[in-house]
């Protein structure tokens, strides 16, 4: 197991390097000039040229990338062009809010999706299952911004139960998380349903039932544990993506998380900030995938590394 983890970590570093390289190339491929964006239209060409030199934008690209990597190894993600603060500071300011929203959104998906999946599996092909399937379909099909706007309008503005958008602790997180849960739960429900159906019809479950285990014990005790594996796989990528910041949610609710910052950085061609947020999100994806793979080893004794 230990050597497996070490090998995976090594692989992760390669993946992250690749991501850094691709993002770097894409950022420079955009035909826009960060120096011009900082100084504005009125500045003279001479001024812009001087700033480009100051920012090191005229160095050959491989050299710029190398400088970036060297700084990265020292934990320095560079300085934002537009906001002129260290990228690490900017991320640190928002990561807490994004993390809270990410976890809450994921939990909502599970809280709605898992029971739906279980019930659908148990009532397979009966009326309940059909109704739940339709609800799930509606949930997935509704655009996230639409669900978000409606929730904010009815539960925050009209009913006054929640603040109308904004950033902060729990009261500000519930509605966006709920919106994400409604639109995302269906994936979990369907995954769980199909893997549970597989498991429920398998030999060892019939054996457990034959041995006298109640339906409930059979379901919860055995079937669910095994059926959770695909859910975990999907969940890892889902949470990791959430940590990058859900732009749509942040836009609808005016929530000052990483997604909002990333979009602004892209529009302003704030390259260090773009690189910083992308790498940050990538680290999470890689990390979570590693955690899930390790968890497999723990959940399923048949899997050994």
């Amino acid at each position, binding site marked *: 197991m230990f050597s497996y983890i070490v090998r995976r970590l090594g692989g992760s570093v390669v993946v992250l390097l690749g991501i850094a390289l691709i993002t770097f190339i894409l950022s420079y491929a955009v035909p826009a000039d960060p120096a011009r964006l900082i100084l504005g*239209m009125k500045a003279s060409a001479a001024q812009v040229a001087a700033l480009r030199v100051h920012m090191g934008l005229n160095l050959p690209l491989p050299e710029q990338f190398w400088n970036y990597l060297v700084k990265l190894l020292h934990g320095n993600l560079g300085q934002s062009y537009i906001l002129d603060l260290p990228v690490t500071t900017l991320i640190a300011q928002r990561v807490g809010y994004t993390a809270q929203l990410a976890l809450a959104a994921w939990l909502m998906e599970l809280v709605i999706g898992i029971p739906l999946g279980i019930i659908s599996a148990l009532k397979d092909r009966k009326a309940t299952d059909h109704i739940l399937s339709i609800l799930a379909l509606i949930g997935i099909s509704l655009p996230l911004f639409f669900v978000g706007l409606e929730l904010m309008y009815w539960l925050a503005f009209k009913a006054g139960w929640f603040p109308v958008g904004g950033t902060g602790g729990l009261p500000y997180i519930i509605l966006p998380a709920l919106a994400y849960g409604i639109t995302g739960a269906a994936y979990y429900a369907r995954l769980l349903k199909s893997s549970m159906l597989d498991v429920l019809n398998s030999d060892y479950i019939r054996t457990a039932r034959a041995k006298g285990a109640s339906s409930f014990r059979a379901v919860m005790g055995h079937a669910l544990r095994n059926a959770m594996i695909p859910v975990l796989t999907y969940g890892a990528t889902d949470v990791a993506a959430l940590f990058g910041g859900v732009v749509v949610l942040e*836009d609808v609710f*005016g929530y*000052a998380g990483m997604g909002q910052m990333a979009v602004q950085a892209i529009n302003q061609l704030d390259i260090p900030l773009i690189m910083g947020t992308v790498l940050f999100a990538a680290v999470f994806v890689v990390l979570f995938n590693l955690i899930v793979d390790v968890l497999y080893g723990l959940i399923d004794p048949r899997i050994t590394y």
Partner: protein
Amino acid sequence: MTARKLKLFGAVASISMLGMALAGCGTEVASTPVHHTAAQDGSQPVYGGTLNLDVNGAFPHLDPARAYDTLSYEAVTQMYNGLVAYKGATNTIIGSLASSWTVSPDGKTYTFHLRNAKFWNGDPVNADSFIKEFERVLTPATQSGLSGFINPFIVGSAAYAAGHAKTLTGMTSLDGGKTLQIKLTTADPVFLLVLAIPAFSAVDPAYVDGHSLDYFDYHPMGTGPFELASYKPNQQWILKKNPNYFIKGIPYLNEIDFTNNNSAQAVLEHFEQGSTDLIAWNQGGIPSADYLPLSENPKFSGDIYKQVEVSTLYVGLNSKVGPTKNLAVRRALEYAINKEQMVKVLNGRAIVANQVIPPSMPSGYEAKLPADATYTYNPGLAKKLLAKAGYPHGFTTTIYTDNTNPDDVSEAEVVQQDFAQIGVKASVNQTTWGTFLNNNETGKQGIFMLAWLEDFPDPSDFLNTLFNSNQSPENNSTMYSNKTVDQLLNEASVMPNGPARFAMYKQAQNIIMSQAAWIPYAYPLFTAAVQPWVKNYYANPNLVDDLQSIWLTKH
């Protein structure tokens, strides 16, 4: 200024004429600090209260040398003061930290007498407070986009900016710091207007030198009516009243709370609930998506404040690239655009434009243009002229625009349809602002859509920057070039203000319009939503909201 960056806008045109008379020769001008005593409805000021505002994102910069967008201005103008300022909502220049000033007969030397004012930390304001800031703006490391306003107009500015001089020789401190003298390289009729730009505010040299550039960008130290009391990064900024403000009697408010919320829906709902007091420059005007819900709701339609911006929306026609390099083609296209339709698409948040200079500019706007500079909507005529120009079957082209504002997109579609009607098949190329700007500044875009906003209320800010051939290709991205126009613009830029100078700009504009360098189609309206308990709100057309003059009544 372009639409994206800085909105310095449009005015209460009637009072504006006075403003131009002040840069006279050798005149002594004394002015008293302004404080407002009654609102337009006659109600008396009430002291106290907190103003709650949603801001459209975190303030990019609180350092006046680096603040060059309307959002930053919303905070910076409450915290810093300059030598001069605009009076209320007018274009008239009055003294701010300068109590009076004289100008030498040749127009090249300005001598300002400074008031006894203090920064929030108690340090006194003196000539060095200004010299320091001007030097900062010129220093490349500050990354200020505003140095072009003083470089090379102030003596020694070019040398200082290039690092060849240790001090800015054109600015001197006299009388132990109570007097500031500025020497210019040529007479400059707009110099006082430039001084009203927030970048040229007083800063505390000791404070600035004692902290890093980054620190100063988030921890201001000014003389202004409000101080930054606390802030939570990206979330909230709380400004509190400066009890020692040099203008007695204001501000009325105790506190201003800016909360970050860029969701148009949330901004609207906060206003409707009454939890915010104002949607104005804190959101860049009423967001597009919120305008109809407010204006069509009888409960809120009376809260809407409108002001014509000193800004023009236009279609640029390139004089050197594509079919538009033919004058006859450009003139044909002028008849193709249905400007009434463009204004409708903006839900009436604009008025039809017929020339480069907007009516809200104190001078330069012509009530009646000569016949060869006047165009009406006439697609039939456009088609005929296009045929005569050698394109009986029209031509294919691309309209370049940026996608920052949802309105930009709708307007581009109207132009596309109007062109299609006369046989010009245009595809719309929409990109983010950065990419659009990059391409636009090469001067190679045949047809593009853009807006121009003033930096200060003078026709040179439009005509010289956009049509002088020495401004190609960056600002003059239509690559317009006309020797007579250049001559007029160059001469007028050093003339003293007066009818002779403005006549030259009118002449220049007439030529530019007859040569169809642009199709100006609308002058936008700045709109704000003001709660009924907020009194004496106005926005200065050249800046942003003037929060020091607002008071709140019980609600």
